[in-house]
């Protein structure tokens, strides 16, 4: 019996908007795929590209970064810096052989529970479509 492929998705959510948005989805009983493993970070500006590359190394099929909408950052400008960083990281991942669609950045506010669910659903489907990473990532031994 074949086991259906379930993509592993790592989600880095900013504490102030997107994590609260995920909470909102939960308290509103809105369903979203369980493929996502949520990691709460203080701000999208806190997310070092190292964390993204490390996630892929340790076997993630997709990485989602979600933060406050531009202009709404709790720390005023963290997400603007993050936006620049990830705008460069995305083509670079593609260049290294990790399809750029495996990495997505979205802005989700604390009230957008519904949107959070839509983002996670559509991203999981995208990653499912891409399938497992070409070269089997080694089991992490960290």
């Amino acid at each position, binding site marked *: 019996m074949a086991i259906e492929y379930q993509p592993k998705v790592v989600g880095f959510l900013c504490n102030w908007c997107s994590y609260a948005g995920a909470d909102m989805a939960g308290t509103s009983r809105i369903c979203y795929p369980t493929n996502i493993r949520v990691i709460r970070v203080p701000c999208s500006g806190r997310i070092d*590209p*190292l964390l993204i*590359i*490390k996630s892929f*190394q340790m076997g993630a099929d997709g990485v989602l970064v979600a*933060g406050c909408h*531009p*202009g709404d950052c709790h720390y005023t*400008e963290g997400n*603007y*810096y993050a*936006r*620049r*960083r*990830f*705008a*460069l*990281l*995305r*083509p*670079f991942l*593609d*260049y*290294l*052989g*990790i*399809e750029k669609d495996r990495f997505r*950045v*979205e*802005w989700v506010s604390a009230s957008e529970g519904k949107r959070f669910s839509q983002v996670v659903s559509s991203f999981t489907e995208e990653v499912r479509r891409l399938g497992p990473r*070409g*070269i089997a*990532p*080694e089991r992490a*031994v*960290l």
Partner: protein
Amino acid sequence: MNLAEQIRNKAKELLESKTVECVIGYERATDGLTARPLFVYEPEEVGKLIFDQTCTHNLVKYLLNRRDKATAIVVKPCDSRAINLLLNEKQIQREKVLIIGVVCPGIVETSWNQTSEKLPARCQLCRQHTPVVYDFLVGETPPTEPAVPKPYADIVEMEAKSVAERQSFWAEHFSRCIRCYACRQVCPGCYCSECFVGQLDPLWVGIRIAPSENQVWNAIRAFHLAGRCIGCHECERVCPVNIPLMLLNQKLEKEVGELFNFQAGLSAEALPPFATFQKGEKLGIGE
């Protein structure tokens, strides 16, 4: 008067007048063919200084060990951009450095006592034959900088490949990496007192011998130089297993140029791309 003589005269003058404590330049290595770095402290020693097409090293890295000491340094145009980078990042003080810029004829590659006939590809594509920053210029400034029709030809070629092809390309190259960190040691932009790769907790890059660990190291090394790599090709030169590291660095250079219209090391004042932002900019992220 040839280039070396001009450098010697200037070095002598600077050391005799005690304007600087040390002149960093090149001397002939013991193999009689290649060049190696030379630190001159005494005016009598300036005779050892040379300059020709074998002087490949980027000496700017050594300024980081002499932050508070007045130093003169011989730089080629690509190396001179590293000085701007370090000034920009407040690593060195302008008044402590005296820059002897050399109008660069392009360098040659040497291996196994053989000197290449042709200029390496990067020198053929060079658009900067005069240093971007200098106090004293050696050599004749060319009237115009040559036009380079296709600056990123090899990058465009890589981009045209499929993702799977690129993945196996890098997997193959990174699998050879022995993580000697020579690329980091030689890089003027890599001066952190503690590198992420040296941290034990969290252990970002594991100590086991594994291609994926090599991949993390090489990807992050390149990304830490995004918008900072000045293109001296030293990392590639010192790599003992010949990983085409400049293919990574130049990809980032190209993207930074396209996204933020920025080139590293051209000015000591310009804000680096990741230290600033524009609120309304459209970067294709989260839109």
